[in-house]
């Protein structure tokens, strides 16, 4: 009499065995689908990245309007330009295009200069004091938002790197004065400037503007060494690490890719404490967790139900930017290989999801080279992704160099 046949008076043993088998099958299925869905990090080559970058830049420059604005938001299901505009995103896209130029590809510099001219035509003076003159970028009489001016500085810095031209140095310094004037004594950054009172709007902050300003100031210091810009950038970064959550009422640590740009650009000019380095490691962990989750999103079937749809191109691109910035931050240099692995994974995900000729729904000019979610793309979907692709290209180029 075997052990399996003994239990005749209770539940039949055979039934019990079947119940165990069923439980295992169900358990394995739930474990696989719910907890360890496959991570899709499609491998990419430098050539594929080049093609994807070219398509993205093509989307941005081909769809430029006559006044230098980008196609801002587009619905391919109805082939409709949805309108709207955001100066910060304009500055950010211009910066990304100049990052392409700074990486050595100057083919689109003329078109990018048109988008820069658009910003230079929309500068407002924010100080009447001659020796503290400052300007900001704002469109149509609106309150200047500091992120737009910060990213304009970044764009100019990358243009300067790409061309070697010093044409805009004076304006960069004036914009820098505006940025510095928005910093509170604790390192917080006022997100807007009020043309009525001619004062910063104290106490109002932007979730990403703070990091953008820190990065712009770090770039200014790199461009104009010895003028003290980095000190202001460091003040902001340390505020973000130590005080921002409490001061701005944030529940969680913000996954701020702009801060990681800043820490990378500051390099050895900033000597973080162990606590500050630990913050950066955790920030890197946030990005790494998010790209893991994103790489598990197939966007279809039960995975869409469990993990929701795929993120915006802008969201995935921002993860890559965050990973790239932190991978270049000296104080957590021991994490570099791991972060670059995630960065390349992010690039693979982006290459895989970019719209190419075979995916066109309405108008290839407005679709090819873009990233869509629910048939809508916005200029920042291309902006963040473009920067990430450039950083990933740099990693792969270095790895494949003989």
């Amino acid at each position, binding site marked *: 009499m*075997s*052990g399996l046949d003994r239990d005749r008076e*209770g539940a039949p043993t055979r039934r019990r065995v079947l119940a*165990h088998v069923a439980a295992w099958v169900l358990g394995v299925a739930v474990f*696989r689908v719910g*907890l360890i869905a496959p*991570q899709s990090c499609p491998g990419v080559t430098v050539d594929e990245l080049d093609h994807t970058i070219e398509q993205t830049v093509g989307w941005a420059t081909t769809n430029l309007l006559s006044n230098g604005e980008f196609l801002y938001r587009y619905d391919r299901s109805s082939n409709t330009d949805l309108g709207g505009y955001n100066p910060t995103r304009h500055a950010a896209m211009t910066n990304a295009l100049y990052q392409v130029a700074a990486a050595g590809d100057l083919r689109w510099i003329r078109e990018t200069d048109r988008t820069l001219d658009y910003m230079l035509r929309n500068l407002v003076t924010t100080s009447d004091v001659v020796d503290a003159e400052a300007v900001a970028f704002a469109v149509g009489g609106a309150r200047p938002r500091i992120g737009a001016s910060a990213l304009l500085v970044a764009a100019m810095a990358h243009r300067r790197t790409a061309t070697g031209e010093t044409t805009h140095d004076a304006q960069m310094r004036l914009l820098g004065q505006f940025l510095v004037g928005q910093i509170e004594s604790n390192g917080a950054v006022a997100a807007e400037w009020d043309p009525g009172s001619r004062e910063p709007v104290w106490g109002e902050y932007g979730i990403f503007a703070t990091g953008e300003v820190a990065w712009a100031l770090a770039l200014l210091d790199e461009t104009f060494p010895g003028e003290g810009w980095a000190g202001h950038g460091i003040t902001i970064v340390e505020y973000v690490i130590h005080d921002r959550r409490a001061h701005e009422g944030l529940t969680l640590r913000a996954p701020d890719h702009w801060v990681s740009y800043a820490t990378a650009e500051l390099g050895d000019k900033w000597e973080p404490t162990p606590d500050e380095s630990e913050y950066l490691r955790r920030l890197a*962990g946030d990005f*790494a967790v998010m790209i*893991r989750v994103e790489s598990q999103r197939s966007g279809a079937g039960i995975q869409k139900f469990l993990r929701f749809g795929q993120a915006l191109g802008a969201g995935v691109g921002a993860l890559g930017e965050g990973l790239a910035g932190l991978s270049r931050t000296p104080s957590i240099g021991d994490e570099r290989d791991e972060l670059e692995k995630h960065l390349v994974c992010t690039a693979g995900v982006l290459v895989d999801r970019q719209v190419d000729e075979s995916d066109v729904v309405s108008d290839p000019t407005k679709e090819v080279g873009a990233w869509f979610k629910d048939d809508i793309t916005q200029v920042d979907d291309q902006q963040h992704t473009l920067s990430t692709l450039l950083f990933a290209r740099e990693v792969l180029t270095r790895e494949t160099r003989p």
Partner: protein
Amino acid sequence: MTLRAFLLVTVAVGWWRLPAAFGHGTGPGRRNIAIQSAIVAAIAVCMAWVSGPILDGLAVDTETFRIATGLTITALGMARVLGWGSRPEPVDVDAGVAGSLWPVAYPVLLGPSTVLAAVSVGSDHGVFLVLIAVASAALFAVVFSFLNGGGRWSGSLVRLGGVVLILLAVALVFDGLRDV
């Protein structure tokens, strides 16, 4: 972390459930218990040995698998705390090694927690740590199989084992999140 990984594998092999599984009855004999434990240990070591190809095949990295393992073992630990697996199992004391695979080798010793812990720890720390851990668990299994599990204490032991399993599994989740 290495100590925690060792403890996780040792506790994941459910030797602490044996007294409850045998109840007032007699276990299938010292020799059988030792053989069943050795079989389970061998399977766990094999799982640890092929953990790399398993994770490659599943297209997940070690940190993701570690977090998933931690979450699953936490759920299994909670089931033990709630009393699941604390009832006596049918045991054929005369059935020999093959006949007593149930319930000693399975389901008591070789449950999902054993498999997951072996793969996760094998992937993170290598086969040797898993080997030492399952050998320790096998030793505990032989010792505990001789305790009379008829009292209420054997159920309490299952609940206590569940609590320990939860603590170790939660630590595993945090290890995974930190290393991500």
